[in-house]
């Protein structure tokens, strides 16, 4: 993207609440932003480190519950609760990273799913803490100094800042030694190890950073919807993140964001035309079609067609290798 394009995009983002005043559209944009953070987070593990986590809803849910419980029961203000949510999600990521560091592929996936399953059961059954299936209503809206971020426009800026921060962290990480180590591990683990890449260290690091970002998304979600229930652990959230990352383009910086915007806006647009079940049916079929016809995702496809090399790179169907 040229400098002009970037500037225009930034200007459009910053001024968005002024030309898109309709609260419904603003709501869709805010949700796209929260999912953008989540998709960026999953992409770090899936796209760069090459490990698929199907338990990402657990980190998201841990962030949401931590933030909600601390503000509701301990009456913390939003910012320290947000920090605690990120820290606790990161700690969960560390545990998963340590536990699963020897496991790859399907076995890593199974440990992440099982972890999310256990956490979800705890959220349903530990009624004294979480209020069980009834959930926690009345999560307070965040404040920034004297201002309440209660309005959608104000919350939009909070989410925009979170997306920008997450994007910056990913970009900084990916373009550093660490990111190169991730990619080296993804591409050829024995080779990476032989040149001195510390596998354990980098995989755990990827899991911790990814989980921390998912925790950030969870906290933002809790204080936006003002309600947290065991539904935050729904597998649907994980699947949505996976589809956003795979469709947008794994292992690209912009891909997850493009995927997040597309797959938040599309279901909303289809909401009138089709029921939720039809949408999920379409999601499942879409995932299959993507693997068959657009294995690398939207962003890499666009980049390839614009750069004038008509798919000159070997288009492998093995996107996760």
């Amino acid at each position: 993207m040229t400098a002009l394009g970037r500037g225009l995009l930034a200007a459009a983002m910053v001024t968005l609440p002024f030309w898109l005043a309709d609260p419904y559209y603003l709501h869709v944009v805010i949700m796209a932003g929260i999912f953008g953070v989540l998709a960026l987070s999953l992409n770090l593990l899936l796209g760069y480190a090459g490990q698929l986590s199907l338990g990402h809803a657990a980190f998201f849910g841990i962030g949401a519950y931590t933030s909600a419980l601390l503000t509701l029961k301990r009456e913390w203000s939003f910012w320290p609760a947000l920090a605690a949510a990120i820290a606790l999600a990161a700690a969960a990521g560390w545990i998963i990273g340590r536990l699963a560091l020897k496991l790859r592929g399907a076995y890593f996936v199974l440990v992440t799913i099982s972890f999310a399953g256990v956490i979800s059961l705890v959220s349903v059954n530990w009624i004294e803490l979480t209020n069980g299936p009834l959930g926690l209503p009345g999560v307070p809206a965040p404040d920034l100094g004297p201002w309440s971020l209660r309005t959608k426009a104000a919350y939009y800026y909070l989410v925009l800042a979170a997306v920008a921060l997450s994007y910056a962290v990913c970009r900084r990480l990916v373009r550093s030694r660490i990111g190169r180590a991730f990619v080296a591990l993804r591409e050829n683990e024995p080779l990476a190890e032989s040149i001195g890449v510390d596998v354990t260290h980098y995989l755990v690091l990827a899991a911790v950073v990814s989980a921390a970002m998912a925790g950030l998304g969870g906290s933002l979600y809790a204080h936006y919807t003002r309600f947290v229930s065991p539904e935050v652990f729904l597998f649907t959230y994980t699947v949505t993140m996976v589809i956003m990352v795979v469709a947008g383009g794994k292992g690209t910086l912009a891909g997850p964001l493009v995927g997040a915007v597309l797959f938040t806006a599309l279901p909303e647009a289809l909401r009138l035309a089709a029921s939720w079940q039809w949408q999920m049916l379409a999601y499942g079929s879409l995932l299959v079609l993507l693997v068959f016809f657009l294995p690398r995702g939207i962003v890499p496809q666009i980049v390839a067609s614009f750069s004038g090399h008509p798919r000159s790179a070997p288009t492998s169907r093995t996107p996760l290798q």
Partner: protein
Amino acid sequence: MDQLLQHLVNGLVLGGTYALLGIGLTLIFGLMNVVNFAHGEFYTLGAYVAFAALTLAGVNFIVGILAAIVAGAALGWLCEVTLLRPLRNESIDTTMLVMIGVWIAMQNGELLVWGGVAKSIPHPFPTAPLVMGPVAIAPLRVIVLVLAVGLIASSWLLIHQTKLGRAMRATFQDRDTAALMGVSIGRVHAATFAFGSALASAAGALLGPVFLAYPSMGDLASLKAFSVVILGGLGNLTGATVGGLLLGIAEELGAGYISSGYRDAVGFVIIIMVLVLRPSGLFARQERIG
């Protein structure tokens, strides 16, 4: 003590169907190297086919179960031929994503067809439990256990006594050599997937009348099947049989002595513990890490 016996009997009934699920998945996973997240959806399919056959068509109970097995095999075959065959030489992650897509699509298809309300599957057996000393068991559960054991035994015969079974075992050991020896890999894969799906479907048709049929029942079934496979070791029929029974009993004991709310956590904890502590499974020496 009496309670323990009761839990063991209940666990055995559950375990028999878990073994069916596990055998199906361990064959698919071990032989085709496909991480079949849609496995539980075939379990759901079985329950709904049995429901449709028994209520709408009003057929005999055994015919309903047979219908479920046939439907599972047919859809499994279709799935292999259309989705997995073109991707046979792709990485395990690619097919895993496809099967996750199939999982979501099938589950929501079932939700659309049958609605979200749980359905009770009728059965012709008396509801009064058979009492043997301290243990009481519903006749339906006895039938379920007997049929499950019968199906497990048939799978054993198929794998160990038939030509197809021999081809399957050869493919599991070394696909390329088996192909050189004239084994049609395509046919073996299609048969394996159809067979594994039929077993999952049978498990659903058997457990459906014991519990209820609802669209998301397959999620937990998939994860239980995976815990059985992980317990028993990949592609290990004995392991899957024993692992299934162990999981069923462990769940019953967990629900009975710890908390019924955490019944389903047993499978998750088994997955994590076994993979972390003894990644090759309890019964196999197969390498699966790295």
